């Protein structure tokens, strides 16, 4: 197990290196730069700025310097937000996005799985159709419309929650719901279809032949086997949801990481693009690793073998 994780960490470093390299050169290949705006800067100032940030040096020295500083967990200063480093941006924005994302993830997973199970157990009955109509809505309605609808009805009409801003737990409910809607719908559909497949398996018939009740069969025999595809989906989903959503953060005025991710690109804020991408990649790689480890716990047939065969 430890050997397996060690090997996976090595692979993660390798992927990270490839991601950094690709982003670095793609970013440089894009036209424009951090200091090109509508008003052209005087050439001397631009030259000084480039010198100050080291942008005048040859690409390889910039590239290797960057690799070294990333290894030291230093993403450098932001070009656009004066006086702030990328590390500051991340450590300010990420906790907010993380909290919001966790809340959304919890809603999406718990309600999604529940809906999926209810739909599967009542296959082709009204509960099934109801849940699936709900799921199709959740998948097809974009999050910004969902957010506006929630704001209009729950905040403005019913005064249940505040419309926007990021102040108390109350403020987190609407953005979390809006963020959770699509993944929740997706998880519900995924759970339903894999549950239906599991329920038609021979071992479910065996469980019935043992005299177990419907509830016991569902809880003890069906759910665990049905959750594997959901867990697979959870890896990339959680990385995506935890780093924040640009749209949701904009609509609700939330100071999260998502807006940096998008704005830095149009700003050509090189260090922020790199920093956020690297951070996101680490999160993604880590959650994929977690999912793979979780497989081993859910399904004993999946062995997490290191170099040699375990045991």
């Amino acid at each position, binding site marked *: 197990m430890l050997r397996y994780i060690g090997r996976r960490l090595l692979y993660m470093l390798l992927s990270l290196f490839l991601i950094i390299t690709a982003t670095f050169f793609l970013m440089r290949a894009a036209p424009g730069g951090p200091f090109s705006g509508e008003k052209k800067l005087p050439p001397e100032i631009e030259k000084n700025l480039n010198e100050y940030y080291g942008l005048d040096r040859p690409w390889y020295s910039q590239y290797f310097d960057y690799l070294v500083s990333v290894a030291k967990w230093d993403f450098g200063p932001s070009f656009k937000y004066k006086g702030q480093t990328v590390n500051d941006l991340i450590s300010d924005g990420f906790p907010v996005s993380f909290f919001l994302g966790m809340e959304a993830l919890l809603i999406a997973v718990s309600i999604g799985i529940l809906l999926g199970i209810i739909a599967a157990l009542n296959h082709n009955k009204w509960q099934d159709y109801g849940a699936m109509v709900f799921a199709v809505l959740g998948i097809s309605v974009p999050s910004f419309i969902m957010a506006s609808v929630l704001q209009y009805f729950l905040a403005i009409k019913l005064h249940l929650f505040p419309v926007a801003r990021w102040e108390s737990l109350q403020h987190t409910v609407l953005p979390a719901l809006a963020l959770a809607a699509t993944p929740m719908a997706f998880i519900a559909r995924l759970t339903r279809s894999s549950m239906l497949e599991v329920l038609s*398996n*021979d*071992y479910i*018939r*065996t*469980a*019935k*032949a*043992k*005299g*177990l*009740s419907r509830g*016991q069969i569902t809880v*003890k*025999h069906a759910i*665990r*086997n049905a959750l594997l595809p959901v867990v697979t989906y959870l890896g990339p989903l959680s990385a995506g949801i935890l780093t924040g959503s640009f749209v949701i953060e904009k609509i609700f005025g939330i100071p999260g990481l998502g807006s940096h991710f998008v704005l830095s690109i149009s700003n050509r804020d090189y260090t922020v693009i790199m920093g956020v991408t690297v951070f996101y990649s680490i999160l993604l790689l880590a959650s994929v690793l977690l999912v793979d480890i979780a497989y081993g716990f*859910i*399904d*004993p*047939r999946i062995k997490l073998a290191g170099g040699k065969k375990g045991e």
Partner: protein
Amino acid sequence: MKKLLEVKNLEVSFQTYGGEVQAVRGVSFHLNRGETLAIVGESGSGKSVTSQTIMRLIPTPPGRIKNGQILFDGEDLVKKTDKEMEAIRGKDIGMIFQDPMTSLNPTMKVGHQIMEVLTKHLKMDKSAAKERAIELLRLVGIPMPEKRVTQYPHEFSGGMRQRAMIAVALASNPKLLIADEPTTALDVTIQAQILELMKELQKKTNTSIIFITHDLGVVANVADRVAVMYAGKIVEMGTVDEVFYDPKHPYTWGLLASMPSLDSDDKSELAAIPGTPPDLTNPPKGDAFAPRNPYAMKIDFELEPPLFQISDTHYAATWLLHPDAPKVEPPEAVKKRLRKLSSNYPQPVIVKESE
């Protein structure tokens, strides 16, 4: 009371888009305590549906028990509610399925799957159930049961999984064990071991067994009595000797003739029954086997044959047993095995159809 199970005029249908499939069309048989009854027939003859109906395992809908009674220990299982059936399944009736590779839950320890039966029906606590599970694994011939009990099904071979399934089915000492083609998915040597094991366990526990198979070789090995099913009906039923050495129904002849034997040389072609079983959405008029039956007479296409009784235990539904029917010779392969049985009545008797 000697009879453990009595099935009377059972009719089971499935509602499909193509119409109502009459899978079981009036099946009656009984099973004595400690006895093994084999139900044989080709795919789609209704043998599995019959057995799953006894356990009330057919999905309803689309399935429906249209008619009949299943008297188990004097109580009619057809009338039981789902909750009442839960108390009978696994406790009084155990079941073994065809494919041991898929019949066990892959993410649950084998021991736990046995313990479930014990905690549910015998109200054992966890440690007692585990002890008993180890004992059961030892009983079904699994070596090192203390270690095996905490393993998962994928760590077992096919034959061992079927042994584990038998342990599950026998965990609470059921009065009846239904084995639905338990050896079909296993290779021949393992098959022989499993059959041997079942016979041995039956001797120890005096369990009655319904053994469903399409393999007549297996039947001869394990059964006391045999019921031959075709198109949702029992066409012939009798003791093993009666069905093997004095078969009366042309379908049974066909089955026996298509059984390869050691002394058949490689020049003679293996006999087969021509054609396919009828579509049970529209069961044919008359005898369902008539279109495939080289001995069919005109009446076979018009009127269903009644049940004739040949001895105390031997029944067959064919017009050939009617006093007015012409004498016919069974196929060569069957003729070779015919013996005179002293228990036969001088004349086959028509059994009155109970309405």
